[in-house]
């Protein structure tokens, strides 16, 4: 499938780059966070070079995953009405990517921090006739709300769009640094494998 180019109503090059960098940011951030968390564990068992190796593989996979998420997000963007400007649509997709990523992080933090739902919620679920269905409905409502509210501001308010644009600017800068780290990771992996 060929995406229409700028002025072709869907995306322009700058928009696609911004979207890719927005997709890459949470994935690289999470990888780095957990890789740093693992460093002492790996060093304890082997050495610093191996710990750097594990992180390097992580950065390469994060880059590949970023590309995949970017492709999915770009395709989803084709479903958004062209009545919105390219800038608004990219901002909306960025919001979508960030919110989904944040929820994916929360789902892993649940295990990472070994937290449990409050007893009162568990009790309520246990007494419910359809606990699983209720839980999924509640989660969907919560997730959808966290997406719909910022999406509304991005689409309806110039101020909302400006806030998002500023955020994208800052994040893309950081994201470029992460992409650079992925490249360093690739070099390290090549060195380890020759």
């Amino acid at each position: 499938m060929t995406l229409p180019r700028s002025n072709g109503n869907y995306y322009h090059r700058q928009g696609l780059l911004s979207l890719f960098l927005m997709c890459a940011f949470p994935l690289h951030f999470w990888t780095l966070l957990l890789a740093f968390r693992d460093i002492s564990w790996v060093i304890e068992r082997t050495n610093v070079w191996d710990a750097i190796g594990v992180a390097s593989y992580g950065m390469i996979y994060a880059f590949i995953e970023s590309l995949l998420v970017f492709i999915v997000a770009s395709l989803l963007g084709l479903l958004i009405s062209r009545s919105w400007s390219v800038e608004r649509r990219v901002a909306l997709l960025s919001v979508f990517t960030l919110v989904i990523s944040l929820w994916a992080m929360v789902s892993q933090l649940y295990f990472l921090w070994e937290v449990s739902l409050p007893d009162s919620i568990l009790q309520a679920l246990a007494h419910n006739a359809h606990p699983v269905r209720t839980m999924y409905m509640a989660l969907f409502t919560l997730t959808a709300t966290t997406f719909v509210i910022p999406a509304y501001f991005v689409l309806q308010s110039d101020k909302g769009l400006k806030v998002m644009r500023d955020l994208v600017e800052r994040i893309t800068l950081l994201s470029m640094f992460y992409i650079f780290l992925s490249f360093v990771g690739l070099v390290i992996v090549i060195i380890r494998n020759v």
Partner: protein
Amino acid sequence: MRQTINRRDFLKLAGLLPLSLAAPRFMQTSLGKKNVIIIVFDAFSAYNISLYGYSRATTPNIAELAERAIVYNNHYAGGNFTTTGTASLLTGTNPWTHRAFELFGEIAPAVAAHNIFNVFKDHYRLAYTHNLVANVLLKQFRNDIDELIPRELLLLGSYGSFVQTLFGNDEDIASVGWTRNIKLEETGYAYSLFLSQLYQPLQDNLVKNIRSQFPRGIPTANYDDGFVLGQGIDWISERLIAAPQPFLGYFHFLPPHSPYRTTLEFYKKFNNDGFEPTEKPLSVFSQKQDKHDLLRRRTEYDEYILHVDKEFGRMYNHLESSGLLENTILVLTSDHGELQERGISGHSTATLYEPVIRIPLLIFEPGRKTRLDINTTTSAIDILPTLLHLTDQAIPDWAEGTILPPFAPTVQDPDRKIYVMRAHKNKHDQPIATSASITMMKEQYKIHYYMNYPDLEKNGQNELISLFDVQTDPEELVDLSISHKKIANALLEELKTKLAEENKPFL
């Protein structure tokens, strides 16, 4: 219809190729020599084996077979984890000689040729391991092995098997990287936010037919994919029956190493059986595991041993019925033990208490009909010279072990000292100076020496010494280092002198 061959089938066929190439050479040159099979079950502690007196009946099959074997009751590994333990077994040397200290470490290059495969040149040499860490050593010896069976051959199919192919020169760390990226199964979190969520259902689907056989999950080999011990045992058994003779086979299976995932047959076999472990004081290296957790993990470990016991019994019977054992020496042992006490679970520990270093050793020799118990203290380094002796080959000068009784032509030196060591923070080309544990056994005494660990430094110490009489106190409950100060000091002096001597070339 066109028949296709998948990668697994290809590897199986490829495995037979060396057989056809090598058969004439071995048949012509070594007719009449005995075969040798070494079976290693990883992290198999003698402490938890009923054959050695454990109160849970964990090894009924091995106990039955032991009635026709030589049973070594006080046998010790070279280290308390795979690298060091396996290296001592395969090289017949102490850790400070082979210097494979670090996890994923290799033998020091200068002594890499000093290995069991190199000295069994007249035999067809085969080797396999599930264990990624042991595989590092086998790969180091690959030029001395006629048939190094690919590790992934006996692993279950996986979407992650590309890692071994693509990153073959960095397989171990690439596998760790892949696991930490994609697999949520163990911890519930992974580097990948989205692919990890997709991977698990796909992988589950791939192994859904056998999942029901493993209520605690399918056993996994270190950081990567699943395996079924029975499948490995079957494949190796068939391979051995067809192998050119005489052969030396080294097969290092991962069970009962953690994760302790027994089969449905043994699941909850020891649940609520009233077993009460001996109460022991917390170690200074305690991982703060509470006693309920330790008992649960011990029970799971014991149930996993039942699975190992059954599979070994099956393998033995299969080889016996094939007639192979009529001309084969079969060795059953381990690379190190496992500990579920003193606040510690597993073997990632500085400590060198009995459960983590005392391992099984049984030798089945052709024609033996009765059990022979050997109570002398023996070491993993003794296996290499013993097997050379039993196959009428010369023992090289560099071998540090001795021929095991009852095969030894002379009585064992009563002053013999046996060493076990963990020095995983030390480099092979530097003196042993940081975070190291050494135990030395002499007569009935066992001295533990721990040096330069952060856990000790927190208490203002840089070394810790304890002394036990393991004949009268096999549980190591009474530290004699104060009450028997003279003996403790003498042994410590001896140990430190030995360490200084071994460190000298690296200073």
